[in-house]
């Protein structure tokens, strides 16, 4: 029984590791589609993601004040940015209600959801690579 529990928690930890790695990979893909920089400074309101150790991911996890892209749903953080960073919402609700959000990336029903706002991309003169077309609305 003890062994089964250990194996169970091991699988659970591996599984959670996979999900967070996947999330960081998506964050990287979104960030590099929005900015043409070698290393992008991002802020994510999920602190567990900033512990990423994947060397292939060219992202720096920084404070929102120093970030190029801010992944958040916190209105106060968005207000304090004063349009200096690109805002990406982390819930659909925030995306719908934050006028500055270029898009949203959130986990719903056990699957990742990515949305880019066509209107806001145009406002910021951002041209996404073609592979992101299916996420634009």
């Amino acid at each position, binding site marked *: 029984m003890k062994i*089964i529990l250990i194996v169970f928690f091991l*699988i659970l930890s591996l599984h959670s590791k996979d999900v967070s790695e996947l999330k960081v990979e998506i964050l990287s893909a979104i960030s590099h589609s929005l900015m043409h920089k070698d290393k992008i400074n991002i802020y994510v309101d999920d602190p567990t993601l900033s512990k990423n150790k994947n060397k292939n991911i060219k992202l720096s996890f920084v404070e929102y004040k120093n970030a190029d892209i801010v992944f958040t749903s916190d209105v106060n953080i968005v207000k304090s940015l004063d349009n200096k960073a690109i805002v990406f919402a982390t819930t659909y609700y925030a995306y*719908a209600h934050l006028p500055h959000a270029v898009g949203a990336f959130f986990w*719903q*029903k056990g699957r990742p959801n990515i949305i880019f706002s066509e209107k806001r991309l145009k406002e910021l003169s951002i041209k996404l690579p073609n592979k992101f077309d299916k996420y634009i609305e």
Partner: protein
Amino acid sequence: MVKKYFSIQYLFILIPIIFVLIVMSLYLQSDLAINKSKQEIYNIEKNRSSKLSSKILKIINEETSSDLNRLFLNNAIRDRVEKLLAMYVSQEFKYIYIVYIDKKGFYRYLLDATFGADRGEFGQKFSPMLSELWKNVIVSKKPAYSSKQDAFGLWATHLTPIVEQNKVKAIIALDISTTEYTKFSKILSPFDSFLKILIIVSIIIIFTIFLLTYLFYKLQKQSIIDPLTKLYNRLYLNSVGKHIKLQKTAIMMLDIDYFKKVNDSYGHDAGDVVLASVAKKILIATRLDDKVIRYGGEEFLILIKYKNNKNEIVEIAKRIKESISKEKIRVDKDLSIQVTISIGVNINTDKNKGLSDAIKTADNMLYLAKNNGRNRIEINL
């Protein structure tokens, strides 16, 4: 005795093989049972979700009077349907939602009976994971079901199209998660592991038995073979002696003439070369069925099986004598030694009381050959 021993050996090997086959068959049967139960659970879940989808479709038709546009246009109806569907959300039916396809071909939530952060807003874009399944539902206008099994349970999606005017207007989606199969697997898991361990242990035992048997036979063969001449030794004669049928076996005793002189004149190494060479010539001159034994120092014994013709025994003796005497034995590049051989043949072994007696008779014939001038054959006619 040898035959009896062989049958016991076969039994030792056969029992573990049968045991492994039984264990393997048990393992395969348990595996079949698991797969069967998985299929059963799959069917049960499929039927349940199919029934629930029908209920949901009925609710929607009742609440919208079979006009789905009402759901798009009327918030109150949408809220009411959501609340009704929320009653069916459970551990098993984790997510119940309805998705429509917009003009651009994007999937969007029409309503979602899910609670909390997983709830999709009306009009929110929806990204299906099994996009092919969704496409199939739209094209075929028929329900579809897909499931996958992982360490945590069975995950499935059941899709039912809502068709109006022969067109799929929306899709009812049920995301199902059940741990029934995992529970069942966990119950069977110790038995499954036990069988796996049993198979491995049995295979190791069989391998060990094969290895030990091989080593035993190798050692046994080594113990009955003379290392110098590669002929059988007297130990072999002792082990097979009881089984020899004297009525059909002639005995030949052979002795290298003046072998002591060879040893004294050229040394024991040269003597060994002569012995090995003579042994080889004897082997070549005899048949496969004949058993050539190094009986003593330079003395050889041959057990010759025959059917009716005793002349063939004499022919063999002549062949041996001639092959040895016709050419010198080359010891090294400077030394070649000519040897001859005396042979005593007992072809009337059926008159002897036993093997020892038959050997004694052959030995007497050999003695006679020696006394009569050596390099000759004496037969007890």
